[in-house]
């Protein structure tokens, strides 16, 4: 099902101009992980490679199990306004000073892949879509959690509006900050999956993902892309920034 080297190619195929070539980053820490492992087991690098493959295979198996466990009708708990975490933590793969600035007037949300109407969307057009709000818990892969209020249009409403092929396997996201990720179609169609334009009733500030964030209360935080620039629907596994480095792809809550 998965091919680790595929991410860059499937993006290129789908939308060349927007999607820059995405470099797979093999971080030093990954090498460290192998080193630590081989020391622990007292084995050579070949064994470490085998172990790494085994762990990746188990992560793939866990993707499947989580797909089966996912109940499309089960809602994430919602909380009262008094439960909101203030200030809501900033979190990204870069420092807060490096948050991208997006010009609202020039902004266009681009669509690609298995979508009937791929015309780009302006922000006023997106803001005119039916709106919904939720106060839900954001759970980070690191373990911490925080409760926030997001408002926007239910993603399934948007997918229906643009004529996305909802029988396809994946929905992928390409962001202004070079972040990218992808989710399963079942989660994309979940009633609480929200294309969020507001945080705490205010236009999404830059640090929380202006102009939009996909808020998915049934997935870990890193599966909630911010500063979305392009959305595509595909049957080819698109991977993700953290996923390609070893984080579990499904990462459902």
């Amino acid at each position, binding site marked *: 099902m998965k091919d680790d080297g595929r991410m860059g190619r499937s993006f290129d195929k789908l939308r060349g101009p927007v999607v820059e070539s995405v470099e797979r980053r093999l*971080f030093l*820490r*990954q090498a*460290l*992980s*192998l*080193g*630590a*492992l081989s020391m*622990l087991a007292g084995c050579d690098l070949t064994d470490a490679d085998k172990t790494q493959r*085994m*762990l*990746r295979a*188990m*992560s793939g198996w*866990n993707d499947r199990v989580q797909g089966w*466990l*996912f*109940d499309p009708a*089960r*809602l*994430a*708990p919602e909380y009262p306004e008094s439960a909101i975490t203030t200030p809501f933590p900033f979190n990204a793969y870069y420092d807060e000073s490096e948050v991208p600035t997006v010009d609202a007037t020039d902004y266009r949300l681009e669509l690609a892949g298995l979508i009937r109407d791929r015309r780009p969307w302006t922000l006023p057009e997106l803001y005119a879509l039916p709106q919904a709000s939720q106060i839900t*818990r954001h*759970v*980070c*892969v*690191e*373990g*911490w*959690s925080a409760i926030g209020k997001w408002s926007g249009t239910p993603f399934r409403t948007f997918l229906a509006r643009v004529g996305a092929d909802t029988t396809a396997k994946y929905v992928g996201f390409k962001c202004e900050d070079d972040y990218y990720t992808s989710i399963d179609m079942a989660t994309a169609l979940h009633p609480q999956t929200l294309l969020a334009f507001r945080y705490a009733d205010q236009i999404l500030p830059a640090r929380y993902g202006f102009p939009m964030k996909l808020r998915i*209360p*049934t997935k870990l935080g890193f599966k909630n892309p911010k500063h979305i620039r392009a959305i595509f629907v595909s049957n080819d596994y698109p991977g993700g920034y*953290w996923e390609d*480095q*070893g*984080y*579990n792809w499904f990462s*459902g*809550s």
Partner: protein
Amino acid sequence: MVATRQAQWLVVHPLVVRITHWLNVAAVLVMVTSGWRIYDASPLFHFRIPAALTLGGWLAGALQWHFAAMWLLGVNGLVYLGYGIFSGHFRRKLLPVRPGDVFADLRAALRGRLVHDDLSVYNAAQRAAYLALVLCLVVLVVSGLAIWKPVQLQALAALMGGYEGARIVHFTAMAFVVAIVVVHVVMVVLVPRTLPTMVTGRTRRPR
């Protein structure tokens, strides 16, 4: 001759118990050390676990180990629990546990006077410790499931006060497991002939 030789040996640990014991050793070792690395990514309390004691190298590596070894821990644990309950193993070896006996044994142990000559019978302190370990591992798995799936298994998470409560339960159960394991290993060092018995299953019949 053969009959006499056999008569000197006593099977104290059934094969299922020995296999599940050693698989559990591997599973718990991986779960605890990778869990410590995950803990360090966002510590619940005001301390970190030294990185040298952790497994995985970084958060993603630790999560891979944790979510792979959970299957070993879970499936192996179910086999052990099923065997223990349905074969009568728990009833024969771990029950009854009377608090009075446990305290008497603990007092004797602290004075260095607790004897464990007959390896086929667990004293009250052992029974209490082994049952507590099984219970803590069950709590660890249940709280771990709640942390993994706080939406899909939200009823389970709610039992522990929600996602953040489940994290505290998970950490606390881990701490108890580690404490019990440390005492267990110290006891094996003090009574070393228990170690080969957990491999072969046999011990010399006490004379």
